[in-house]
């Protein structure tokens, strides 16, 4: 409870939580498109390639202010993406190799620049290594304002080009045939993704930022089949785990913010995959069990009718054991019999034998007829 109140009273915690929340909203919403377009790993490449941009921006401006570093990160991330696209379109190198290579090479170059900066007398440690795993506690109010403005701009552009982005995500060729400049739209969407990633670098860090692109969207996907709902849900999940992670990490200065946020959002993904209606694993398991049960009840109904017909009496009773020997799933027979009785399709004689009621006979005849029709 104290944490909740300190969210509103504690300056640092409030700043950090706000920053992480904004990052979650923006990366969640734009990540939805990336995930749908199977570009989940593009986020990984963009965030890693931001590192040399951050280092270069620091070298040029000599300042640690978030705005300059974010511009540097954005330009580098954007150029990195264009490099990936160029490699794919101008050579036989496939997307996975191009992504991995650009990511690792530019990150390596970033490390070169960082090791160079750390030797500079005036820079000291410069605090740039916080960008590796994120340290939200260093965030200032003006950083959060910068993030909020950039994030809001990105979301507004997303809303303005909603139809185009939807087209790009689901049927690019159709869009092109309608005369939309799909390449330009593609680059615009990627630019927005770059903005989303850059916003999160300070809290989550370059190494794990890709998770904030993929995970909220992957979680949201389980709950809906509609793009609009998915984007909103992803934003909510992202914001929720951003705030949770930031709070968790503020409880101890030995928990880096990035990993804390990633664990929170991953928990959301896991829960969504398990429990979401329609798609969730648990729901599917239940549905499968229910189908299996229905099927064995129906089979039993038909068995009973067939058996009784051999006695020229459709209401002829039989023991549960007799029915068991006919069943393809003998262990479920008692349960199925209870189910039949519940529906009023079968009942017990005084000797404990089972017989079909009139209602049950009608139902079984119906089922048999259906089977005959299908065959």
């Amino acid at each position, binding site marked *: 409870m104290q944490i909740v109140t300190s969210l509103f009273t504690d300056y640092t915690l409030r700043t950090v939580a706000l920053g992480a929340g904004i990052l979650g909203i923006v990366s969640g919403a734009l990540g939805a498109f990336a995930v749908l377009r199977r570009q989940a*790993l593009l986020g990984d490449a963009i965030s890693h390639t931001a590192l040399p941009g951050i280092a270069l921006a620091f070298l040029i401006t000599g300042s640690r202010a978030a705005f300059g570093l974010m511009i540097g990160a954005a330009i580098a991330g954007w150029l990195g993406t264009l490099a990936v696209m160029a490699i794919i379109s101008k050579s036989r190198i496939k997307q996975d190799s191009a992504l991995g290579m650009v990511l*690792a090479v530019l990150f390596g170059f970033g490390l*070169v620049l960082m090791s160079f900066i750390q030797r500079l007398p005036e820079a000291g440690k410069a605090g740039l290594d916080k960008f590796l795993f994120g340290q939200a506690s260093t965030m200032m109010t003006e950083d959060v304002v910068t993030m909020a403005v950039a994030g809001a701009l990105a979301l507004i552009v997303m809303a303005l080009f909603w139809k185009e982005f939807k087209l790009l995500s689901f049927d690019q060729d159709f869009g092109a045939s309608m005369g939309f400049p799909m390449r330009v739209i593609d680059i615009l969407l990627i630019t927005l993704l770059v903005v989303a990633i850059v916003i999160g670098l300070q809290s989550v860090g370059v190494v794990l930022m890709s998770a904030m692109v993929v995970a909220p969207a992957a979680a949201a996907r389980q709950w809906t089949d509609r793009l609009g709902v998915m984007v909103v849900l992803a934003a909510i999940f992202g914001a929720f785990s951003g705030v949770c992670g930031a709070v968790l990490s503020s409880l101890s200065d030995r928990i880096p913010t990035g990993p804390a946020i990633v664990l929170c959002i991953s928990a959301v993904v896991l829960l969504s995959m398990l429990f979401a209606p329609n798609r969730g694993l648990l729901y599917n398991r239940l549905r499968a069990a229910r189908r299996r049960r229905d099927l064995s009840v129906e089979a039993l109904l038909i068995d009973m009718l067939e058996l009784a017909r051999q006695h020229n009496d459709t209401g002829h009773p039989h023991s549960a054991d007799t029915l068991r020997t006919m069943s393809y799933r003998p262990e479920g027979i008692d349960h199925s019999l209870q189910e039949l009785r519940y529906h009023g399709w079968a009942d017990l004689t005084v000797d404990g034998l089972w017989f079909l009621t009139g209602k049950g006979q009608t139902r079984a005849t119906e089922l048999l007829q259906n089977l005959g029709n299908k065959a």
Partner: protein
Amino acid sequence: MTGAQIEIQLIAVAVAVACALPGVFLILRRIAMLSDAISHAVLFGIVIAFFVVEDLASPFLIIAATATGLLTVALVEILDRTKLVKEDSAIGLVFPVLFSIAVILVSRYAGNIHLDTDSVLLGELAFAPFDRFEIAGADVGPRALWLIGGILILNITVIVLFFKELKLVSFDPALASALGISPVVVHYLLMTQVSITAVGAFDAVGSILVVALMIAPPATAYLLTDDLRRMIVLSGLFGVMSALSGYWIAHWMDVSIAGCIASMSGFWFAVAFTLAPRRGLLAAAIRRRNQKKEFSVYMLLIHLFSHEGLPEAELECRMDHLTDHLAWSPNMAEKAVEEAVDRQLVVRDDQHLKLTKKGVDQARAAMVDWAPGGYVAS
């Protein structure tokens, strides 16, 4: 060069070649990003094993970390198989979790030991020679060199022994299973290689260099050859070039060695990307220009051929008419005519153009080649 410098370069070269070998199959099978996932996730295994045995030099760490690499691959596959997420998302979901747990464990409980978060990613090759390997009290070289040398030999052995299987599974998995070679077994063999290599290289050079060296040199080689054996050899070669050039640049500029090697692997790729004999940007540009020239010469021949000897020839077969009729720029018209004259296909008399005998033949031949059904204008 001092002894330490030679040792560092030896380690760098061994890492580079050890990474390049499995990397070839990764990029051919389009699963290069798994190397990124594995190289991050192995940290989880290392950290957990470290908490159990409390000894960074224990071979148990390598086993545990390799197992984590395989666990990552298996988890990605399980996620993929639920059909709830696509494969790329699955990769993007699995490794951040393992990596995050590892980073939190390290920064929370292992603050005082050698295992810190920076060295995880960056690795510090410069320190590798300080960690000596001793047999019966005698110093036999840096521990990293033995470890990575061993992994290099292992990788070479696996590729030599299972060359046929790896090749078949990479290019035609369906045929492979028809012939009784299980793609799954070969896949996990490769993944084991990638994991062991990532683990071994991890301590000395950091995880990110592993990714760079597994993808960039094979990708560079892929631009230069269509032959798998040649590609493997070239990948190793580019790995060595990246390692050595990266080391010396880092040495001169006094910056991160691993970072420089990664950068240089990208540099060599960029060189091949622009200058590769057949697939480079430059070669493609030249080829396009030649095709354009070739095409314009034929356009000219056909144009002249279809008007020559007819009443309008006086008007059509003129230099300045090409710009109107074919919508060519004067510059392009000039070039095309020059080329045609050079090849003795056309004679030029100031503005007037006339086909030579050879020109007529070629125009006719070109129209047989290009016209649908081989229709020839008489």
